[in-house]
């Protein structure tokens, strides 16, 4: 039997990650990066970081778009669309099914337990996703400093995150990073 084509392998892997992406999409980024950059070399580290950056600069469903751009680089438009669909269709079907069920048992003890048990794990995954993306794309000290400043400003002030993204882009455009 032939190994699956890169396109099929990618779409399959994104589908798997989407279904277990508790806490949201940032948590899948470390695994996805190891898969497409490390294990298969379909994208360079820089290209992966670019896909992540571009979707921050345009409106729209940004994580779905990021999966689309990775799919696009691997297999063109059809794979871009397939990657987008597997990112949100299975999880959406799940949320739709789970919502009514969850609502009915909102005061049950098991539900609080699931909530309190899942939450810390998902939070750890999200923070890991951010840290791995901060180190992606041969980033130097200056860009790590931008990341650290963004964390500090987000936590200490009520600044609109858009300004932080814009400031990062401006520093980068000036060739500081």
């Amino acid at each position, binding site marked *: 039997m032939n190994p699956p084509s890169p396109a099929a392998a990618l779409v399959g892997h994104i589908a798997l990650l989407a279904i277990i992406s508790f806490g949201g*999409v940032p948590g899948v980024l470390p695994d996805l990066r190891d898969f497409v950059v490390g294990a298969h070399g379909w994208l360079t580290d820089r290209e992966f970081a670019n896909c992540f950056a571009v979707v921050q600069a345009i409106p*729209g469903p940004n994580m779905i*778009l990021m999966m*689309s*751009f990775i799919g696009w680089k691997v297999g063109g438009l059809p794979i871009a669309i397939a990657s987008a669909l597997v990112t*949100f269709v299975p999880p959406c079907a799940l949320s739709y099914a789970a919502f009514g069920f969850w609502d009915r048992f909102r005061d049950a003890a098991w539900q609080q337990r699931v909530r309190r*048990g899942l939450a*810390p794990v998902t939070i750890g995954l999200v923070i890991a996703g951010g*840290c791995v993306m901060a180190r992606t794309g041969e980033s130097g000290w200056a860009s790590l400093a931008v990341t650290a400043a963004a964390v500090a400003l987000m936590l200490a002030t009520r600044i609109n995150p858009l300004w932080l993204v814009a400031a990062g882009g401006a520093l980068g455009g000036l060739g500081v*990073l």
Partner: protein
Amino acid sequence: MGALFGAFLKVSMYGFGGPIVWARRIIVEERGWLGDAEFADILSFCQFLPGPNVVSVTVCIGARFRGPAGALAALAGFILIPWTVGFALGGLLLSYAQAAVLQGILRGIAAAAAGLIIATGIRLLMPHRQRPVALAFAALAFAGLAVLRLPLLVVVLGLVPLSIALARPQQAPAR
């Protein structure tokens, strides 16, 4: 139905940086479809689900008002046009990504955006800071993914059942 499509189209097109913020502004403040508490409740539910959080919020709100058809209308509003526009714009940008200036800009954006993700995680962690067990599981999940570079499936399957088993429902104010 049309209103659901329109509202979520707007959320998506405005949703630079944080679509959740816009979802709240449009659904709660502008349209008055849900109270703050109801919105927060749906959001907290969706944060545990797999998949893009804001997409789950979209589906749940659509479903609450108009059942399956409402969920589809809201989802279509959120995705169809914004995806097409975003894909075209982003594709254009990526095809010029070798240009030095653009390369620098993208590098800066990625660095800042990574910071936003980390800050979001830290903020979510704050309500749990009194619970050593919760902090330990967050640290384990972080280490498994970011330090040991384990596959996500291994981390999730390894930690989630244990974490749920050790969580105590009645202790401390539930938040």
